């Protein structure tokens, strides 16, 4: 049976949803409509996050989750790698 879009959204973990929201916020500040944030998207090449946006993302993650990969010396390439860091 095919799932509806809403059901797909509900299957995202809380962490995943929070990360998607943070990335969407970064796009909102740019004045750009965000693309659909899939796990395969690369943070710098596809989403074009610059160093200040990555630094802001790192700070938001730490604030929300109490830890973040960048401070741990890990630089995730994709949204999926970022989500995995918090699910591991």
């Amino acid at each position: 049976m095919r799932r509806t879009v809403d059901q797909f959204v509900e299957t995202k973990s809380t962490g995943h949803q929070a990360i998607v929201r943070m990335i969407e916020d970064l796009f909102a500040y740019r004045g750009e409509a965000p693309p659909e944030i899939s796990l395969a998207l690369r943070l710098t090449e596809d989403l074009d996050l610059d160093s200040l946006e990555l630094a802001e993302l790192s700070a938001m993650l730490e604030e929300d989750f109490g830890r973040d990969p960048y401070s741990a010396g890990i630089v995730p390439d994709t949204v999926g790698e970022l989500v995995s860091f918090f699910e591991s």
Partner: protein
Amino acid sequence: MSAQHAYGPREHYDRVGAAWSFLLGSELHYGVFDTPDEELPIASRRLTRMMAEAAQLEPGARVLDVGCGSGAPALYLVVEHGVHVTGITTSVGGVATARARARTAGLSDRAEFLERDGMANDFPSGSFDRVWVLESSHLMRRRDRLISECARTLKPGGRAVLCDIVLRRELPLEEVRERRAEFALLRDVFGAARMEPVAAYKKLLAEQGLEIDTEVDLTARVRPTFSRWRENAAQHRDEVVALLGGTEIDDFVASCDVLDGLWQDGTLGYALLAAWKPV
């Protein structure tokens, strides 16, 4: 995050355009100073003149001004060098101001201004004798697309000139994170900027087959610009507050201090490059 407004170049210039002519002067760009106490309009005009010299302009040449602001340098080129300028910007307000200026000066037949993106300008290949990018490249996120569009729209034998703020050292992510309040303030005041090292520009120009023959480091000579901007803020406080509000002028002054600090610690500088497109 401290951003109070969307900071894409289009939104940014439409919002701040009028107030900035008080703060940055009518040319809306840095100055090149012979002495630290020189006036900003003289120093700003010197930068425009240096670019014009590097461009080796000839009367009748067709010039594409990428990121033309409100058109002051473009009209200077028309008057002083007898060229025809097509200025492009993503700012609707910038286009309107530049067109009005051209009309007032009676130059509308030799200076046209269009709302277009420097990273995808839609002009036919080989349309221009010169491509001019004065301090706008740092606002175009895809620098590779900007440079490839410049190279594509140049005629063979044409010349590209560019000047801008450049990154003079690698900034580790930890340092960006630590200093993110400073960088976010700059973004809020000046729009979303991405500085690149001179070497990155040179690589992109070379990849597009352009031959660089001019490279000038203007880092020290532009630095008094920040003092002049602070003085302008003090002198025109009432006008700017009326246009933007009190917080924004205080942020502007604080951002001048941040820039001065980034110049002082060797993070940022200023460079001018020129290159030929081989025949």
